[in-house]
């Protein structure tokens, strides 16, 4: 097995699928010749040619519309929106056109598209490059939303997303691209969409999270175990639409306490949805209310105060203590 960081794992997934299926196409602003502003697609144009991997003019709505049109033609587009803040320009094509193609056409057409976008804070990027906008997409019927937290999952989830016959919004956390290396099989494999992963077993409290916050939560869990002997179970959602509520319920039946951690602003997002579903399915197993650790409901901050705006291990520890002491 090879050691890969998350960026390399994503590139490897794209390579596997470009090789396997001639209908897979990769495009977006700067993704072709130089391989993207983060080099996530580096070398792929050279390997697969300009018809398969190509640069587009700078216009996000057209990238989305191009993907929809190619999907109608039987291609499997992997379209990159260069930074998450630019998805608004493409939102009509993602959230209205691609997501409802199957429904509108009664199954005559579909949108087997992956929309890739880097996102995620803590990297001191320019404004609107890092915001956690995943909640917008999770509220959209007809689209799946995937957020990997490690190289192995990233490759398997990307391959599963490309093979899915419905649109998938695939979010790649900037802070995880180069964060660490892990073993990633060189062959192709899938990590099933809609299945969460218990990344750490514990008996006292469950943390439900995804993306970069998996790692922040692990830090908090290490600290809680070391200082107080508290055993935290951590669930990495991996797919935030649909949410794997069964894995969450099974965990809460064991721990009876939970918190949800997300980078995004607190209100009406993924954490809110997780808690609503817990209420529907596991309320009698709870010994305390489920708390959220999230960004405050402000615009995403300028770089100077990003690190204190984002959920920290300390804030997670405080929330765990609150539910344990309830």
């Amino acid at each position, binding site marked *: 097995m090879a050691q890969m960081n998350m960026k390399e794992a994503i590139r490897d997934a794209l390579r596997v699928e470009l090789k396997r299926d001639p209908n897979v*196409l990769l495009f977006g602003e700067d993704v072709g010749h130089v391989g993207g502003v983060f080099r996530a697609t580096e070398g792929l144009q050279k390997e697969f040619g300009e*018809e398969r991997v190509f640069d*587009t*003019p700078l*216009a996000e*709505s*057209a990238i*989305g*519309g*191009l*993907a*929809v*049109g*190619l*999907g*109608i*033609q*039987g*291609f499997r587009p992997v379209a990159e929106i260069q930074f998450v803040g630019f998805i608004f320009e493409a939102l*009509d*094509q993602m959230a*209205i*056109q691609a997501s409802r193609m*199957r*429904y*509108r*056409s*009664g*199954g*005559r*057409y*579909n949108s087997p598209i992956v929309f890739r976008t880097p996102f995620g804070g803590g990297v001191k990027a320019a404004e609107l490059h890092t915001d956690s906008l995943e909640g917008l997409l999770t509220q959209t*019927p*007809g689209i799946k939303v995937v957020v990997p937290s490690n190289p192995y999952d990233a490759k398997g989830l990307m391959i599963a997303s490309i093979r*899915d*016959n*419905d649109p998938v919004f695939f979010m790649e956390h900037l802070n995880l691209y180069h964060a660490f290396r892990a073993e990633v099989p060189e062959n192709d494999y899938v990590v099933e969409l*809609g299945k969460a992963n218990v990344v750490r077993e514990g008996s006292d409290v469950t943390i439900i999270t995804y993306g970069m916050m998996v790692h922040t939560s692990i830090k908090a869990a290490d600290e809680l175990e070391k200082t107080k002997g508290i055993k935290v179970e951590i669930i990495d959602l991996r797919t935030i639409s*649909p*949410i794997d*509520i*069964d894995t969450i319920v099974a965990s809460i039946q064991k721990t009876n306490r939970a918190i949800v951690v997300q980078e995004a602003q607190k209100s009406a997002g993924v954490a809110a949805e997780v808690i609503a579903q817990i209420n529907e399915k596991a309320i009698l197993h709870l010994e305390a209310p489920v708390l959220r650790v999230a960004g405050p409901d402000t615009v995403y901050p300028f770089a100077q105060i990003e690190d204190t705006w984002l959920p920290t291990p300390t804030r997670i520890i405080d929330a765990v203590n609150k539910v344990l002491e309830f």
Partner: protein
Amino acid sequence: MSKVPYEVYTEEVEALSVLSPDGEIINKDKLPKLTDDQLKEIMYRMVFTRTWDDRAVNLGRQGRLGFYAPVSGQEATMVGSEFALQKEDFIAPGYRDIPQLVWHGLPLYQAFLYSRGHQHGGQIPDGVNVLMPQIIIGAQILHAMGIAMGYKLKKQKQVVITYTGDGGSSEGDFYEGLNYAGVYKLPVIFFVQNNGYAITTPFAKQTAALSIAHKAVAAGIKGVKIDGMDVLAVIKAVQEAAERGRNGEGATLIEAVTYRFRPHSLSDDATKYRTKEEEGEWNEKDPIARFAKYLEKKGLWTEEDTARVKEEAKAKVNEEIKKAEKTEKMTIPGLIDSMFEKTPKHLEEQKADFK
């Protein structure tokens, strides 16, 4: 260095006409090559479309149709542009462009179902290369561009035509689509039916450009302006654009100057923003009357023919609306199952609430 062609965008372009309002050939060089049978078929379709539109407006008033955008006045652009295509070519329409879909193969009862808000209306039969009508004014322009790239990648000689109006030409998606099609040299025809009004906003308030055709210049594609009340000019322009696309010469923007005789939809009142004089002037340019004069002079059409087609159209519309009305209603579980290829568990659970 090549000279900038200032004259292209500082002077108004003359709209191409082939027929005068009296039905005389005024531009012999641009007369499309059509057999007598084809000429009669075009006339048949225009009369049929007008009759169907009249009937649809009445059906709408009776509550037997849902959203409906009238088409009378635009028969030359709609029937003509579709007629100039091959069966394998693709159509990406706006909300008003139902006749093109039907003449390209969408069964009429499905067009009625679309209007009535039934999913089956968009369930295009295999082998019919059209999309269902688009509501977001410019979105289909981008789909057309993507579909055209698909043909190019598959090395197929088909072209894609997409329709919008003068209002649609102001959308960002319009410019993005033109620009992409220019860069990738795509076999796509951007067909703008400039009917003078975006709902109520007149063309003068839509753009300061001298014409919509001028906008092609900035995208590096060909732009032409045509008389949209002249079906022969429409056919000629689309044939030339399609040929250009098939030959790998890229995209064309066609601005067809036309008029909708009725309001934007059944829920607005055109008398609030248009004058009787204006409507009268455009009535004199009626595309059906003009083409009829041409065919009558050639001995290919009579008033009796028009009456016969009207009767046929009425009967057909009645039959198809009945078929639409008899089609089984949609259900919520059916709707839920149409969201994804494989219905996810949470949606399976939600289905149970509707049994």
